[in-house]
């Protein structure tokens, strides 16, 4: 029979796990501000949790655990620095400065601290893959091993990427602060790109066989919520809306056999209506700001799809108009292709096909399987079976994803 003490220790460990998940990112962010050093803040954070494990059985859990963790972490960091001063005298001045700064002020700055951490992890001195790994660990609180599984990498690769990213932030003397108004658009853009990449990583993986992968899509949505809450810029809200609207349809995106199901064939009853409603509201708010960009426009398109009671009732005129705006905000041949498919629904298959063929002739999309798949589908619906078959064959040569390939094969077999 476990002793009462052993049982209490187990309960405390579980409680500290919960606290770690709920508070450790905020505490870390504040410690970085107070100590001015990422590594020292991590050491202080770990020491604070170890101290909690050692002392709370006697003292009980403090009334404000987050404040206690910050204060304890800061003291632990000072102790550490004092010990190290014996090895490295140059640290003495740092200890003095930190000591003089005294106890941290009230904790109303904590939310700002978190935002500073997001901006630092997505700092432009870092490569995108380093930004992603660092953000997932330091802001989302995932473990190195979880990130490695989610990104299909080895843990040592991710660990090294994180170590190097931190070293780079240190070398470049990146400061932990919210960017100035002038810098904000570019810096926010990097943050939003990281969130979008994390979401897509999870979204695409959801059809894969690996069920142990962390749900990166949910992490991305959580992260987008933090950013919107702390930095309510229209494009941040637009991105959150886009993620909510895509995620709302996640369950219906693949059939029971893992096959890809296109939007017109999806079971709209399985869509997450609450998420669609929230996405729609957020898009409307971002649009009304008149300072929106590509994420908001993509979200607006997703909202039109999501709000149609059935595929036939989709407001294609609205979608074409939104694609016209998107082509101005973020011109790309892929956007042109998507617009062409909307034109096909709104103005007729021939009109859409003409744009697709023109795009293919321009060459930029010649090796993009979805461009060939688009032509194939339009030709099939127009009864041009030989043209359709040729394009399905080409699309199959280029497509990599297994679910996509199966869908293409099925469509091609329907020609016979």
């Amino acid at each position, binding site marked *: 029979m476990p002793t009462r003490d052993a049982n209490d220790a187990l309960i405390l460990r579980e409680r500290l796990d919960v606290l*770690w998940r709920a508070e450790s990112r905020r505490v870390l962010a504040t410690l970085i501000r107070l100590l001015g050093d990422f*590594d020292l803040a*991590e*050491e202080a954070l*770990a*020491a604070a949790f*170890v*101290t909690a*494990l*050692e002392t709370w059985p006697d003292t009980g859990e403090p009334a404000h655990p987050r404040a206690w963790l910050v204060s304890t972490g800061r003291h632990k960091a000072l102790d*550490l620095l004092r*010990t*190290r001063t*014996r*090895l490295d005298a140059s640290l003495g001045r740092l200890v003095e400065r930190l000591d003089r700064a005294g106890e941290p002020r009230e904790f109303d700055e904590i939310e700002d601290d978190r935002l500073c951490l997001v901006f630092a992890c997505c700092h432009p001195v870092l490569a995108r893959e380093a930004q992603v790994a660092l953000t997932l*660990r330091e802001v989302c609180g995932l*473990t*190195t*091993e*979880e990130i490695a599984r989610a990104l299909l990498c080895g*843990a*040592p690769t*991710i*660990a090294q990427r*994180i*170590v190097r990213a931190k070293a780079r932030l240190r070398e470049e003397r990146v400061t932990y602060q919210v960017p100035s108004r002038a810098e904000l658009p570019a810096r926010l853009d990097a943050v939003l790109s990281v969130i979008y990449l994390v979401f897509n990583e999870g979204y695409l993986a959801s059809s894969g066989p690996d069920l142990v992968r962390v749900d990166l899509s949910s992490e991305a949505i959580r992260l987008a919520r933090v950013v919107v809450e702390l930095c309510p810029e229209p494009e941040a809200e637009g991105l959150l809306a886009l993620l909510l609207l895509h995620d709302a349809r996640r369950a219906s995106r693949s059939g029971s056999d893992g096959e890809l199901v296109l939007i017109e064939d999806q079971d709209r009853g399985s869509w997450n209506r609450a998420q669609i409603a929230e996405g729609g509201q957020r898009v409307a708010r971002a649009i009304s700001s008149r300072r929106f960009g590509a994420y908001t426009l993509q979200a607006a398109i997703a909202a039109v799809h999501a709000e149609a009671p059935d595929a036939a009732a989709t407001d294609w005129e609205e979608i074409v108009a939104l694609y016209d705006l998107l082509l101005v905000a973020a011109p790309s041949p892929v956007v042109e292709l998507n617009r062409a498919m909307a034109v096909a629904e709104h103005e007729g298959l021939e009109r859409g096909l003409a744009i697709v063929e023109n795009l293919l002739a321009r060459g930029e999309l010649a090796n993009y399987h979805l461009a060939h798949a688009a032509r194939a589908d339009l030709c099939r619906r127009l009864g041009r079976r030989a043209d359709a078959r040729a394009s399905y064959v080409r699309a199959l040569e280029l497509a990599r994803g297994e679910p996509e390939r199966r869908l293409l094969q099925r469509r091609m077999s329907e020609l016979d």
Partner: protein
Amino acid sequence: MKYLCLAYGDQKKMEKLTKEQFAELFARCQAFDAEMRATGQYLQGESLEWDCVTLRPNGAKPIVSDGPFVETKEKVGGLVVIEARDLNDAIRVASLHPAARVGAELGWAIEIRPIGTCHQ
């Protein structure tokens, strides 16, 4: 999660140290060692003798040979087990180990291995 840290060193170079040199090295290690233990994440640590024997399967009775399984200049001279949240946390704690801070001229290095995932 638990991680095993294997501390490596060059046996020949270490055996050449004089008593005084060794005492000085030991003193330098102690500060790091103390700091590593103070993290509260240090579970166990041992130093190892150099001499060893290796057994290989051979029917009912294994073949016994003297010396290590892999013949290299650097050998495992110590091990530490730590508790860490993830691999980066283990790197942070293991960075306090003397073999990660001093002794580069003696071939010191530290290898971190996660404990507990079963080989399938």
